[in-house]
């Protein structure tokens, strides 16, 4: 049975009213190669068989690994209250009602989300909300262009590659994205090249609307954000900070170092790493840019009887009213996930969030020490919070072999930056508060075995090596405790 609401007769009458012959004519403006082709779907299955098939597919996911993968998405402990509260029927829709003020609870939840994120960012205005960190970053870059009436944005190559790709995709029709190189070696290796940034900013024929840099950056390193902001402002450009929200509990927030706009991925705030999304795009700005920020803004006021009330404000610049001149061509939001972030942040409180961030940093320091002890050092020397790149020969191959030993060794940087020779032999690894000492030990030992050419544990226990450390570890790992890891 068809689930569409229109009968063939309905469609025919609509076509006649429009004076066209086919539905296809409505899509004439979309180039043919971009249109969806008919879906090649298998035959329907009974629910029982389908459930079995889906469970079989789900079982192919590896959930047994000791994971050191971050690269933009981070594992954290989510208090049970978060998911339980999300299941309440009052919340369980991503949509803001079309007559929003009738749903005061929804508006209050958005207002609280905006207030909490504004406090984390130390900025005046937060919009609720965007698809993900990449979309929020692209919107931030577009805001800079609208606010300055300039058409060129500089994005550090140390910003997440997906965010840079998304920004490129959003830009077009005269707007230009240019990448700021990263320092190749020395103490600042892996961070934004300030001298190159100054040169790019000096091109007065092509004035810059905004400069985009990440904190921590994609390699986990801390950037000289205040200095980048100062260089941007000196030529009248806006400064966009791309941030990870948990880190803001211990690092300086964007407002403190002069960012005009902040964007980020909200996933670490109580949202599970769920295979690419749905996630939550955070976007915040100074009050001066309130008319450039796309998305929902909710304000608190009093009604005619003097009672507290929440209202949708600044609606007039959204797409349903302003059409092609809207602040953004995306007019939806992630209300449920924004609510998850609000519940997560308020459940943990400021001290709890600081504990999460500092525990992650401590685990990462432990990881660095454990890897250094088996001869694996960092790729970049600068300070980091809870994620860093390590130098590993034949990184992709080692990454694959570590999977066989139950370790997800982060991300082979060559997978996302194939053209950068400095990243050929590197893995990006991270730790958070859920990383255990056992997992760190397992990772270091497995990496040591692979790099020293020892076979997997259990095939030739401790044989063929003169290294007493390795023999001892191999013996230990075959004890029931080791096997259970």
């Amino acid at each position, binding site marked *: 049975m068809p689930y569409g609401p229109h009968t063939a007769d309905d469609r025919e009458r609509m076509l006649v009213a429009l004076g066209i012959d086919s539905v296809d004519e409505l899509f004439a403006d979309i180039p043919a190669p971009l249109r969806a082709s008919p879906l090649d779907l298998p035959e329907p299955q009974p629910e029982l068989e389908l459930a079995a098939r889906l469970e079989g597919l789900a079982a192919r996911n590896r959930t047994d690994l000791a994971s050191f993968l971050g690269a933009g998405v981070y594992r954290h402990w989510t208090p049970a209250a978060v998911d339980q509260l999300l299941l309440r029927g009052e919340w369980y829709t991503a949509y803001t009602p079309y007559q929003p003020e009738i749903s005061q609870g929804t508006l209050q939840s958005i207002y609280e989300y905006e207030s909490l994120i504004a406090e984390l960012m130390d900025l005046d205005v937060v919009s609720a909300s965007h698809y993900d960190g990449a979309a929020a970053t692209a919107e931030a870059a577009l805001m800079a262009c609208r606010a300055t009436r300039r058409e060129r944005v500089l994005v550090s190559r140390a910003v997440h590659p997906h965010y840079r790709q998304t920004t490129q995709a959003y830009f077009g029709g005269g707007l230009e994205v240019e990448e700021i190189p990263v320092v190749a070696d020395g103490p600042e290796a892996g961070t934004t090249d300030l001298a190159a940034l100054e040169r790019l900013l000096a091109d007065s024929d092509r004035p810059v609307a905004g400069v985009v840099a990440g904190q921590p950056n994609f390699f986990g390193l801390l950037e000289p954000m205040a200095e980048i902001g100062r260089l941007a402002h000196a030529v009248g450009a806006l400064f966009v900070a791309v941030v990870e929200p948990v880190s803001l509990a211990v690092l300086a927030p964007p407002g403190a170092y002069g960012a005009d706009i902040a964007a980020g991925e909200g996933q670490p705030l109580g949202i599970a790493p769920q295979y690419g999304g749905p996630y939550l795009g955070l976007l915040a700005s100074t009050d001066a840019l309130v*008319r450039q920020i796309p998305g929902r803004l909710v304000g608190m006021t009093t009604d005619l009887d003097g009672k507290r009330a929440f209202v949708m404000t600044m609606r*007039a*610049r959204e797409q349903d*009213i*302003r059409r092609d*001149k809207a602040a953004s061509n995306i007019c939806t939001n992630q209300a449920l996930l924004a609510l998850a972030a609000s519940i997560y942040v308020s459940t943990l409180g400021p001290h709890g969030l600081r504990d999460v961030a500092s525990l992650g940093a401590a685990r990462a320091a432990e990881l660095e020490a454990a890897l250094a002890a088996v001869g694996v050092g960092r790729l970049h020397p600068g300070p980091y919070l809870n994620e860093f790149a390590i130098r590993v020969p034949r990184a992709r191959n080692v990454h694959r072999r570590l999977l066989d030993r139950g370790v997800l060794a982060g991300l082979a940087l060559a997978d996302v930056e194939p053209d950068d020779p400095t990243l050929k032999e590197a893995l990006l690894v991270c730790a958070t508060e859920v990383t255990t000492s056992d997992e760190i030990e397992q990772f270091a030992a497995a990496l040591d075995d692979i790099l020293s050419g020892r076979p997997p544990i259990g095939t030739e226990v401790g044989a063929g090596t003169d290294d007493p450390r390795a023999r001892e570890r191999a013996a230990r790992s075959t004890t029931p405790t080791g096997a259970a890891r």
Partner: protein
Amino acid sequence: MVPTDLRYTKDHEWVRVEGDEATVGITEYAAGQLGDIVFVELPDGGRTLEQFATFGVVESVKAVSDLFAPVSGEVLATNDALTGSPELVNADPYAGGWMIRIRLAKPEEVDDLLDAAAYDALIAAG
């Protein structure tokens, strides 16, 4: 009847020409249709406008509308009072609610604009 010493566009801007300078705002009718005006976005001084190009945006509680330059020329001044008191556009559209002053680049363009009688007829027709 709208003021007879002004010229008008079909988009509801008015122009007061004095020598080679033109003062521009929106009409009482336009302000009334928009409702309470909460924000006016104006160009930077020194910018050169083409006739009928967008020069700014007026935002009311229910809509955001573009502002169109009735004549070509350089922007000499903008009404800074509108930053803090955008409601002047509703309260006093033809004086305190003025928006920009332009140095006329092509004075003959003024002849293409509507006079008061023609503008009155336009708004009477709805």
